[in-house]
């Protein structure tokens, strides 16, 4: 039933976008964190998306037959959450407990505007997946009405 596997693809998209939102929220919450267990300021985190292989019976059958991953419509998956290696923001604040000898503090490499844009992009992508779920549901209900009346 391809309508159900399309629901799976949309669900994977929603999971991934939600995780992206979580990471953005974490970045924003730590926008001013200068101490971490690893030492140094907090580093911005980002998610890495990758297309997911076909799940379910159709995909398993295609793989067993040696075809390359079936139709390739499995949706998306988050393969990693990586740290942004951009250098920390240097702020002159001699009174800060984490200030260096030169009076500069290493602040997290987080640009609030970038995070806000990322957040909006994740929201819109989530909504697009919701629309796809609604359509799949509507189509499945329509299919159930075949032959009635």
């Amino acid at each position, binding site marked *: 039933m391809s309508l159900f596997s399309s629901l799976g693809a949309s669900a994977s*998209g929603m999971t991934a976008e939600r995780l992206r939102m979580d990471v953005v929220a974490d970045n924003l919450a730590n926008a001013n964190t200068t101490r971490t267990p690893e030492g140094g300021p907090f580093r911005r985190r980002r998610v890495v*998306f990758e297309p997911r292989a076909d799940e379910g019976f159709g995909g398993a059958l295609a793989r067993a037959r040696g075809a390359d991953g079936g139709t390739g419509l499995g949706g*998306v998956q988050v393969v990693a959450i990586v740290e942004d290696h951009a250098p920390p923001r240097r702020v002159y604040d001699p009174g800060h407990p984490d200030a260096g000898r030169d009076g500069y503090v290493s602040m997290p490499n987080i640009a609030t505007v970038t995070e806000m844009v990322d957040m909006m992009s994740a929201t819109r992508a989530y909504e697009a997946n919701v629309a796809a779920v609604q359509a*799949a549901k509507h189509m499945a209900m329509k299919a159930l009405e075949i032959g*009635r009346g």
Partner: protein
Amino acid sequence: MIGIVGPSLFSGNSTSAIDALGRALDAAALRQETVAANLANVSTPGYHRKDVAFAPLLDELLGRDALPLAGADPLHFSGEGAEAAEPPSVITDSSGAMRLDGNNVDPDAEAARLAETEITFAALTHALSAQFAGLRIAITGSVRG
């Protein structure tokens, strides 16, 4: 006397129409699946959008000489409709990356495609219901069923 020995209920035009509509429903469902996969990967760098190849399939079918099956009697099956039995295939559309990350999914275009597919699917289910309603009238002999 031809009229009396006409095509039977389950081998006539209505059955081939039901077959064709069923395949069209499968194709529409597959298209919805590609749209869902594209929307799920709207943020995946380097992802190329998937679509269902309808037009190449149609061209292929139109270009082919659909030879009728040989029959000893004019009432034997002509094989008409059987040439459309190939399933539609999923293709990867790599035309022009729109974004810097190499992803060419346009959410607006996908939303339009989603609405289009949904309406097509609903229309096909209506047509299929009408076919079954016709069969029901033929079986029961009354419009009320």
